[in-house]
């Protein structure tokens, strides 16, 4: 039995917003793999919950008229990984969310819940940062869409006001068209572990595949919220594909990331693996774009 104060089950998005406005202290529960665990630990003991889990209108992946990819916030990790649209256009996102927890957790966990927790280690978050994802929020005054970099405010805090529900994550066409990506999660175990450091890279190569035209690199657990490695991005933009570029890139990472000491790993260790996984992720992303490299 869970120590739930009151449980309000939303019947529609509008109803969820009304319930949240009526009960401003209530927490939203989506898949519950974080909320229920925190409740069991006592951190959320006795709180009221508004359940949105049964709102099927918030599930599924579609391509919109402007060729953006729209992922309903309640879409589970496993459904994202096995979705045709994702496999064909956004393989890196399917790959990233396939590294969350274990198989059962990926069946219940939702991409909306993953991002709304506001934690830096969320496996989907670094890739969504690297894709310049847009977050669709529905509130009492209607729908608004903001960049993911504005959605994350500080550790555990996102741009949701009372009565707001995150309803979708949108990947604009220009973010994925012509890009290939790679997500590398460094953790102590291969399954059921939280990332020690995660790195997601998206690259676009020149037509003759010799120059990196554009690169977007994001890290998880390299700061209080997921972050983009802007200095490293600038240094590899327009650079030729060779070992020297990879090394410059790896070194530049240290100017962007700011990990902390925690019981999971020290700052020094995170900086050390940061260089390695960034380099490897960049090379792998370039390989996926069809270029042979050494890795």
């Amino acid at each position: 039995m869970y120590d739930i104060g009151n449980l309000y089950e939303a019947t529609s998005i509008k109803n969820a917003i009304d319930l949240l406005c009526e009960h401003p202290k209530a927490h939203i529960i989506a898949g519950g793999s974080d909320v229920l665990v925190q409740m069991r630990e006592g951190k959320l003991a006795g709180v009221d919950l508004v359940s949105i889990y049964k709102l099927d209108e918030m599930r599924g992946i579609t391509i919109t008229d402007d060729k953006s990819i729209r992922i309903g916030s309640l879409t589970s990790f496993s459904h994202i990984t096995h979705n045709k649209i994702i496999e064909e256009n956004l393989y890196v996102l399917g790959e990233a969310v396939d590294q969350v927890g274990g198989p059962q957790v990926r069946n219940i966990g939702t991409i909306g819940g993953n991002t709304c927790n506001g934690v830096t280690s969320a496996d989907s978050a670094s890739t969504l940062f690297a894709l310049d994802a847009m977050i669709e929020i529905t509130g009492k005054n209607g729908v608004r869409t903001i960049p993911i970099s504005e959605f994350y405010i500080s550790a555990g805090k996102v741009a949701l006001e009372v009565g707001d529900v995150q309803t979708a994550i949108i990947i604009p066409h220009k973010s994925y068209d012509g890009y290939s990506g790679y997500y590398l999660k460094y953790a102590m175990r291969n399954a059921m572990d939280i990332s020690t450091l995660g790195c997601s890279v998206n690259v676009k190569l020149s037509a003759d595949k010799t120059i990196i035209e554009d690169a977007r690199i994001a890290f998880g657990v390299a700061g209080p919220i997921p972050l983009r490695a802007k200095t490293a991005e600038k240094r590899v933009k327009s650079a030729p594909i060779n070992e020297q570029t990879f090394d410059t890139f790896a070194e530049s990472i240290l100017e962007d990331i700011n990990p902390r000491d925690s019981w999971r790993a020290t700052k020094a260790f995170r900086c050390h693996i940061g260089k390695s996984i960034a380099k490897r992720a960049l090379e792998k992303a370039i390989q996926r774009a069809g270029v042979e490299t050494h890795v």
Partner: protein
Amino acid sequence: MFKEITCSINGKECTKVIDVRASLTDMLRNQYHLTSVKKGCEVGECGACTVLIDGEAYNSCIYLAVWAEGKSIWTLEGLMSPDGELSDIQQAFIDEAAIQCGFCTPGFVMTTVEILNQKKLYTRDELRKLLSGHLCRCTGYQNVLNAVEKVMKDRLNQ
């Protein structure tokens, strides 16, 4: 607060009034006496409480019982044939000595049902990943993998 929940459990339509604070594990064990659904870690890490909901494997400990409304749920008890025979998966676990204390076994078996329903030939590494949501402190996993691989190949006539 109480609520009436109707769902299909092991192929039978069932209705019971439950406490809305209950997990699906609580409901299946306490209301329906399906004690194959084990209470292990109760935080979604060990997989001992795994059941199938609409064909997908879930940790029932971190699934609210009220969400079961309208769903089709299968537990280990549902695998037994009417004459009491074990399923091929359960038999393979016995044949391969994939069981010691048995506490993790119902969960492993239910995830195996989900895996084999894909009707795909997986590599051993892929099976490892697909089974990685279960903890077993006795077997060391090798025999579990052997058992799952054996049924997979048998079913695919490989």
